[in-house]
Structure formats: structure tokens, C-alpha cells
């Protein structure tokens, strides 16, 4: 047991470096995916043009339907055959941003639908323009409704950064795998790595739960 502890401590610098990189991948792919998903969700929900809506729904369904790993392989291994070569890092970011935009747009659409119709009608009856209505009434309420879901989703994104091991990106799982291949203590090192994933995800879901109670009016 003391050996396990001592080994774990000695692995920690490498694992924490990997964890930092996993968090960085999560952050960048959300930074790009969130605004994209917000716009995608809002436009899909509110557009009056049917062809546009169908197109956007198709994109959203594709983004949610394709496994992130498949998208990652398509970009990293597939695109070079049409002369588009991205680094492992940017392949991951591109693949995750695509998936994220799809999922976030669904969360946002749900939130916009969750706002009572009366809120919009009150704006109309008062003669308040569309942009102002969106900025001051719809967006703040949609964001409030969707914040816990978005934080929960961010935790899932963090978990799925482990897929990046497939393109040898130095994230947490990759760091654990490398330690295992040197020490052959796969069981121990994956337990420690798993615990690190769990700590972050549990903290995030607790935070989401706390936000859900905090964000009621």
C-alpha cells in the first residue's frame, strides 16, 4: 500500500501535466464550441426560413450523431488525403468544437423553448424591438435555464478529451499510458488517472447542482 502511495506521488507531476492539458483541450474546444452552439441554437429556433432551418438541423444532427472519435479520425487521418493537414492538437479542437456546437445548440434550443411565450408577447405588446428583446429578455433567461446543463456538458467534454489518446496528444490518459508502458504498473496508474478524472467531473457536477439552485429568481 505504501508502495502504491509512493509510486502514485512520483507519477503525479506527469499525470498533473497531462490533466492540465486535458483541461486546456476542454477549455479551447468549449471556447469555440459554446458561441457557435449559441448562435446555431438561436438561429435554428427562430429562423422563419425553412431551408435554412433544415440545413442547420442537419448539421446539428450530424454533429451529435457522429462519435467524436470518428470525427477526430476523419480530420486527422482522412483530411490529409485532400491536402488538409492539421496537427493532432488542432484536429482534436476541430473535432470537439464540431460536436460541442451540436450539443450546445440543442441545450440552448431547449432553454429558449423553456421561456414562457408570455415573455416574448410582453415585449411585442410594449413595442420593444427584436434585438433588444433577445439581448435583455431571451438571452439572460435562456442562459440561466441552460447554465447547469452547460456545466454538466463541460464535464462530459472533459471526459471525452481522453479520446485524444488516439492521436497521441499528451493529455491525462496518454500520460498514464506512458507511465504504464515504462513501469508495467497499468492497474495502479490507471486507478490514479481515473481518480483524477473523477475528482474533476464530480466537482463540476456539484458546481452544476449548486448553480441550479442559485440561479432561480
Amino acid at each position, binding site marked *: 500500500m505504501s508502495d502504491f502511495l509512493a509510486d502514485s506521488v512520483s507519477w503525479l507531476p506527469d499525470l498533473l501535466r497531462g490533466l492540465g492539458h486535458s483541461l486546456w483541450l476542454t477549455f479551447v474546444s468549449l471556447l469555440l464550441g459554446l458561441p457557435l452552439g449559441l448562435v446555431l441554437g438561436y438561429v435554428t429556433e427562430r429562423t422563419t426560413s425553412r431551408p435554412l432551418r433544415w440545413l442547420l438541423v442537419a448539421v446539428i444532427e450530424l454533429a451529435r450523431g457522429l462519435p467524436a472519435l470518428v470525427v477526430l479520425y476523419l480530420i486527422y487521418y482522412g483530411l490529409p488525403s485532400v491536402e488538409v493537414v492539421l496537427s493532432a492538437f488542432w484536429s482534436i479542437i476541430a473535432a470537439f468544437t464540431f460536436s460541442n456546437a451540436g450539443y450546445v445548440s440543442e441545450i440552448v434550443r431547449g432553454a429558449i423553448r423553456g421561456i*414562457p411565450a408570455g415573455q416574448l*408577447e410582453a*415585449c411585442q405588446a*410594449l*413595442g*420593444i424591438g427584436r434585438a433588444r428583446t433577445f439581448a435583455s*429578455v431571451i438571452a439572460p433567461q435562456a442562459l440561466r435555464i441552460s447554465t447547469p446543463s452547460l456545466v454538466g456538458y463541460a464535464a462530459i467534454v472533459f471526459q471525452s478529451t481522453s479520446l485524444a489518446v488516439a492521436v497521441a496528444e499528451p493529455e491525462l490518459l496518454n500520460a498514464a499510458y506512458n507511465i504504464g508502458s515504462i513501469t508495467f504498473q497499468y492497474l495502479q496508474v490507471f486507478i490514479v488517472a481515473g481518480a483524477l478524472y473523477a475528482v474533476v467531473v464530480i466537482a463540476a457536477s456539484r458546481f452544476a447542482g449548486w448553480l441550479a439552485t442559485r440561479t432561480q*429568481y
Partner: protein
Amino acid sequence: MSLLNTTPSPDATAAPGGPLLVVDSLTKSFGDHTVLRGVDLHLDKGEVVALIGPSGGGKSTLLRCINQLELPTSGQVTLDGTPLVSTRGGAVVAPSAKALLRVRRQIGMVFQSFNLFANMTAEQNIVFAQRAALGTGKDEARERARTLLERVGMGHKAGSHPSQLSGGQQQRVAIARSLALDPRVILFDEPTSAIDPEMRSEVLSVMRELAEAGMTMLVSTHEMGFAKQVSDRTVFLCDGGILEEGPSRSLLEQPTHDRTRQFLRAIAEG
């Protein structure tokens, strides 16, 4: 203290005599379903008209067509001589966004479900309405909001969110919000139906003060007491048409139409 501004409103300069709001042969269909079958109605300035009738009879739709939350199928609505419904070659067409905003800023609307903005306090609701609809400056909007909240007896709740207020309190704030835009006429869509019976009087008394202050009001209601005591005229709307109308007291006490009598009896037996 008056609920209205003492400064002369724009309609003070309008030609005297003519009705302020005229609804002319208004129809509304949703697909095959006809809700309004040619409604004619007029309100003089300062007049309070109660709109009564069975649920599904078209009361809400009529109010919503007047401020064009619903686009009428045919007919016209005129406010102080200005037609509000856009037509092309005699047919009703969707108005431009700009025209729509202009119409709605002149016609206040108070909803059955209050519809206060959930993400804003009572005061913020009124400040935001003025700033977004009229471009009022922040200080001026805030001062007016406070004055109006005092006048509807809600000054002590200026910082409360709608979820912290009772139905009656929310509706008083909603009335104040509507007043903040200085509308020419206010439409009330069953303003007390979603409020506990013992809380209704606080809303009705605000409306009574408003009527006494000279506000032009069209009130869809099931409150026959209010209709009798406060409204000048009562209109009975049934199956999409006006079946009977007249001075409130006589219509409510001695209706001429069987259907009106039947409706009033059902309400009284409640």
C-alpha cells in the same frame, strides 16, 4: 393622486368628438376556424368598455387583433383616425416591424398571466420598458418607475422579482409598466382571472382609479361587479360576434338577448 400624467397627452390636441379607437368589420380565422366574424366596436376617449362573454367567444383574440399580436384576417382598427392594420389592395398584409412597434407603443396591454420579465425586478421591468420602447434616459425612467410603483401601491416591492410577488402584486406592477409608456388606450385581457379571489380587489381598485383618471380602457373580464360599477358600456361577445351592447348597468341588469341572460345567470351561479 392621479394615476395618469398631468401633462397633456398627444390626443388632447386631436379633433374632439370622434371616437379614439374604432374596430371596423374585424374578422380573424385560424385555418378553417373562424374566431371573429366581423366585429364593430368603438371607444371614445376616456371611455371604459367591458368585454364579456363565454370563454372561446373571441374576447382575447379581439384584444390581440387590436394591438396586432395576431394579424386580423380582414377589417380595420383605427386609433385617433390613423388606420393601424396594414392593407394592400384591400387585403390585410403583415405590417413592417417599424409600423408594428409604433402601433403597440400607443396601445397598452395587460395580460391574464401578467408577463412581467422574470429576470428583472419590479422596478427594472418598468425602467426597461421605457428605455427599450421609448429610449427614455436612465434617471428619468427610474424616477417614473418609482412614481408609478408608488401609485399602484407597490413602492415597497420595487426591488422584488416577479417570483417573489403574489399574482395581485404582479398584476399591479404590470399595469404600472403599461402606464409607463403613456398609452392612448389600455387593453386588459382578463386581468384578474389568474389571481386568487381575495387578491383581486387590489387590482380592480387600481383599475378603477385608472378609469376615474380618464384612461381609455377595453377590459375583457368575468368580474360583473367591476363591469357594472366601473365600465361605461358593456359589450357581450359570443361566437365571434357582438350579440348585444349597451350601458353597463342596463345590459347587465336587463339583457335583451336570451344568450346574454343565460351567460349572466351562469356567471352568477359561478
